[in-house]
């Protein structure tokens, strides 16, 4: 049985219906990227997969012995976290909370697990540092380590590369590849970066108004929806890189 099965799913954002009759499955060992334009309901779907929002129609079922508390999650960085005084260790450890019921403090095994994940993501040296003082890439690693503390089976990522520079982005995809292959963790990622999605994922779920697609990467690139979207996004990306307005110059930016 599949890890996750969506059947005829309908989702609303407040009163607006963002998607209807969506069906797809996620098997063990899959690497699925969910792509689509802004406002196509990617984040709403993510919330539903995480159980933060209930389906407004259709069903979402977990299978293969997967429990709600065994899902790891890498959120988009929120406002709160940016100035939150917490050490890396504290953040990573908080990923272990789901595996215990009423035990009030962290056990040795949990601390060990947190340590292993920090080792795996090469952030052990940052252990005592303050989370808010780290670079964007380092922060993502910390949150990823926390997510890995929470799961051995399924990892959900919401726009993990937004705001990261190209080098760090490549690095992050490398880490995910490693986690996927070596640790055998199933990955579901929401992303706007469709080019990277087709390069790394096994399967693509494209959601959008009227046209949606679910299937392998190869099939997606052959499909009309996929070609259209890939072309459009390539063009857009190119345009974005040409118009970088972030050029710091000396003597600039002093306005009292």
């Amino acid at each position: 049985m599949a890890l996750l099965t969506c059947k005829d799913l309908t989702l609303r954002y407040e009163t607006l219906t963002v998607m209807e009759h969506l069906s797809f499955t996620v098997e063990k060992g899959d690497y699925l990227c969910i792509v689509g334009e802004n406002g196509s309901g990617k984040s709403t779907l993510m919330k539903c997969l995480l159980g933060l929002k209930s389906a407004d129609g259709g069903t979402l079922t977990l299978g293969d012995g997967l429990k709600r508390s065994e899902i790891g999650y890498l959120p988009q960085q929120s406002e709160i976290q940016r100035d939150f005084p917490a050490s890396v260790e504290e953040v990573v450890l908080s990923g272990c909370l789901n595996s215990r019921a009423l035990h009030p403090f962290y056990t040795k095994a949990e601390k060990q697990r947190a340590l292993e994940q920090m080792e795996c993501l090469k952030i052990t040296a940052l252990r005592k540092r303050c989370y808010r003082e780290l670079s964007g890439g380092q922060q993502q690693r910390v949150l990823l380590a926390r997510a890995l503390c929470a799961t051995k089976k399924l990892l959900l990522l919401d726009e993990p590369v937004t705001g990261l520079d190209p080098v760090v982005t490549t690095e992050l995809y490398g880490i995910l590849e490693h986690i996927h292959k070596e640790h055998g963790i199933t990955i579901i990622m929401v992303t706007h970066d469709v080019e990277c999605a087709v390069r790394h994922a096994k399967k693509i779920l494209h959601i959008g108004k009227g046209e949606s697609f679910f299937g392998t990467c190869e099939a997606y690139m052959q499909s009309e929806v996929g070609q259209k979207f890939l072309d459009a996004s390539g063009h857009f990306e190119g345009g974005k890189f040409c118009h970088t307005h972030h050029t710091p110059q000396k003597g600039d930016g002093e306005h009292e």
Partner: protein
Amino acid sequence: MNDLSAILTPEYLAVVLLPALIAGVAVSLCSSLLGVSMVLKRCSMIGDGLSHVGYGTLCIAVAMGWAPIQVTIPVVIVAAYILLRLSESRKSRGDTAIAMFSTSALALGILVSSKANLTTDVSHYMFGSILAMTHGDVILSVVLSVCVLLVYLLFYDKIFAVTFDENFAQATGLNVRFYNLLIAVLTAVTVVLGMMMMGALLISSLMIFPAVTAMRICRSFKRVVVTSVIISVTCFLVGLFLSLWLDTAVGASVILTNLAAFALASLISMLTRRRKPQTADVPKE
């Protein structure tokens, strides 16, 4: 300025000052713990709202001749639950709803107490009366503070998780609603206790100041929590001493001591972070 040796007779110490000290330290401890979560969760207005509701309830309780704290605590706990729901709801703006709800409760209380001609009786809850607390009040404050402290310690890890990232905590199976409610209930109890001590107008700043001050100089959650407890208790003791010496209101003295501590911490953090200059966030007038 008062001549301290004249005031501090053994009798005064034992009957007035010692109970005030014990209750004050206990409540400062609780308020600083919960203040950290409130500041970090961006819901400092819930504390303020609760103090409004608490004051309104106190007015009614006094007018009806009920025991003030025993009535107020359960009412404020219910109010905390309602305020939490209001702040969660997306349809109405959370902060507006909280302000409307809490000031209405306050207005109702004032209406009842003015009708019963008790305005002067209840006005000391507005500014606090730590030196006039009865022995029963002191014992109740200490017992409830110990409860708040124990619950906080037992659920410390979960409170961290819920404060740091609610969505992650919920997505990975933690009962976020329960823990939010727990924080709100603990806050409610602390607000009522603090209100008798510091006054309804000042209690929310007693919660917020130590946390914000600690956040200026600390870089981990545990340190922020521990430091804010130390700052809170120290500022309370210093403030109380100053108020006796200078013959000023206790609550106001404690808050201004907190302000001084905050200024000092800001200065320290500015000096230690010279290498990474940040934009000054002190409002200019």
